[in-house]
């Protein structure tokens, strides 16, 4: 299979319903060589999306492609090039870490023993340690070691940093940054921590209540979203402006949030009698919260 001929993954119109939750008509794709951060609150559907992608769940509608192969029909072939780690995944407690390493190495011909040994040292893990004796952070590191030493072309990480202490989180993200240097490899990284996502990802997808709220490249998010402080004289009422996501009015001051910021907006506001006193870039977390709130209002209305 040609490396660049297909996306790392593509979900098209995917639907999956459970008793109290529905992932609805989700479409999302990641070109090869890119890192996507999937951000959403707890229960948004991130894990369900990833489980559908890996073939652990079967969609009720829509199609799933992973490394150019149809899922779940060709999941065994697709997973040769994919490593998957989730925060609720565990290794076998009664076996040692070096047994797990030999086990995974026996399955993957591309297993990189030298890299595995380097990661052992880097993560400060002992190969003769029984898995049941590992701490939460060590367990995640062990899972990552087993995933990374396979040298996968797509690394799928479902909330890998949740429950990790700041030092372990930093080590993990640094290792991911190293992988990212190899441009032929892709990563899908789900988290509710926008700082982690902002640090390593170049594509971002916001998901909430089973729906895709927005997905685009990180720079475009950061460039388009702005928060404007306005000075509005008494008696001036602002008309409904296009591309305004939120408008919070005070007595004289107003805060306007837009997802399509252009300098021309200043002119439009001044024509209405408002004066722009400040323009602030927004953090990914602020953009995420504003996007989700807008999406919820749209759904309700």
């Amino acid at each position, binding site marked *: 299979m040609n490396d660049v001929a297909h996306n790392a993954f593509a979900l098209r119109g995917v639907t999956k319903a459970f008793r109290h939750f529905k992932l609805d008509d989700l479409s999302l794709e990641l070109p090869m060589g890119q890192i996507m951060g999937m951000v959403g609150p707890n229960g948004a559907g991130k894990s369900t999306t990833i*489980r559908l992608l*890996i*073939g*652990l*769940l*079967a969609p009720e509608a829509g199609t799933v492609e992973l490394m150019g192969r149809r899922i*779940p029909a060709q*999941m*065994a*072939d*697709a*997973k*040769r090039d994919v*490593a*998957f*780690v*989730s925060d*609720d*995944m*565990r*290794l*076998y*407690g*009664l*076996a040692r870490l070096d*047994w797990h390493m030999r*086990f*995974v190495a*026996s*399955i993957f011909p591309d297993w990189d023993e030298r890299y595995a040994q380097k990661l052992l040292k880097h993560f400060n893990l002992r190969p003769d340690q029984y898995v049941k004796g590992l701490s939460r952070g060590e367990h995640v590191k062990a*899972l990552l070691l087993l*995933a990374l030493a396979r040298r996968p072309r797509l690394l799928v990480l479902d909330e890998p940093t949740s429950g990790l202490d700041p030092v372990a989180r930093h080590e993990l993200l640094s290792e991911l940054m190293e992988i990212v240097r190899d441009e032929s490899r892709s990563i899908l990284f789900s988290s509710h921590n926008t700082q982690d996502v902002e640090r390593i990802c170049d594509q971002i997808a916001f998901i909430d209540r089973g729906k895709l709220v927005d997905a685009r490249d990180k720079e475009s998010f950061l460039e388009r979203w702005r928060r404007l402080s306005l000075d509005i004289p008494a008696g001036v009422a602002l008309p409904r402006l296009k591309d305004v996501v939120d408008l919070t009015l005070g007595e004289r001051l107003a805060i306007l949030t837009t997802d399509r910021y252009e300098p021309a907006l200043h002119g439009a506001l001044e024509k209405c009698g408002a004066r722009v006193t400040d323009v602030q870039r927004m953090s990914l977390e602020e953009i995420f919260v504003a996007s989700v709130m807008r999406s919820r209002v749209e759904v309700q209305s």
Partner: protein
Amino acid sequence: MKRSVFWALVRKDLYLMRGIIIMMIVVGLVAFFVTGFGNVGLAIGGLVFLTANIAGGIFMAMGMLIGERKEMARAFALSLPISGHGYDRAKLTAGYLAYLIPWVLITGVVLWEFLRPHSGAQRGMVVYAVILQGFALAMYSVLLAALFGVTSDGMGALVIIGSNILFSLFMMKLNQPEIAGPLRTDHIAWTPFAQRMLIGELIAIALSAAIALFVMSRRRDHI
């Protein structure tokens, strides 16, 4: 590749079950040896022998299916290059192999002891031993198939309680004088009851394996 993943997963389960496999072999053989020491030896050895066979099977099935689910190691195994159905088939294969290794060894030793010349054992007990071991295997097979089908711990516990009740009923029936009597002689007699039991056990094994395969083939979600 797919074949090697399948067998790597089977070997993985055999490795993880090695403690129970060794325990079943050692305890089963020692218990059988003890049965040769008079009535007390027969009572104690027989009880321990049955416990090793039945409890070993229950621990094995629970460890392989419920334990893996509770430990949340299933997601790790399913991250490997195998389909969900392929993984279930590997699990079923490992489940049967893990039990058959001690079962074949223990049954072989028991039959050899009854059949070898000058052993002092009643040769008719061969039939008793075959029915008993056949039942243990059939019960394990039914237990394995049932645990494949259930997803909750509560249902798993019910299956185990049900299999224990079934075993108690079987032992009560097997030890009735009119059934056990003809078997406890030097003459190997395949009585109609023995024949019916063996056929029933074979049907139970085949049916439970078929049901497990059917349940797997219908499963769309694997976690």
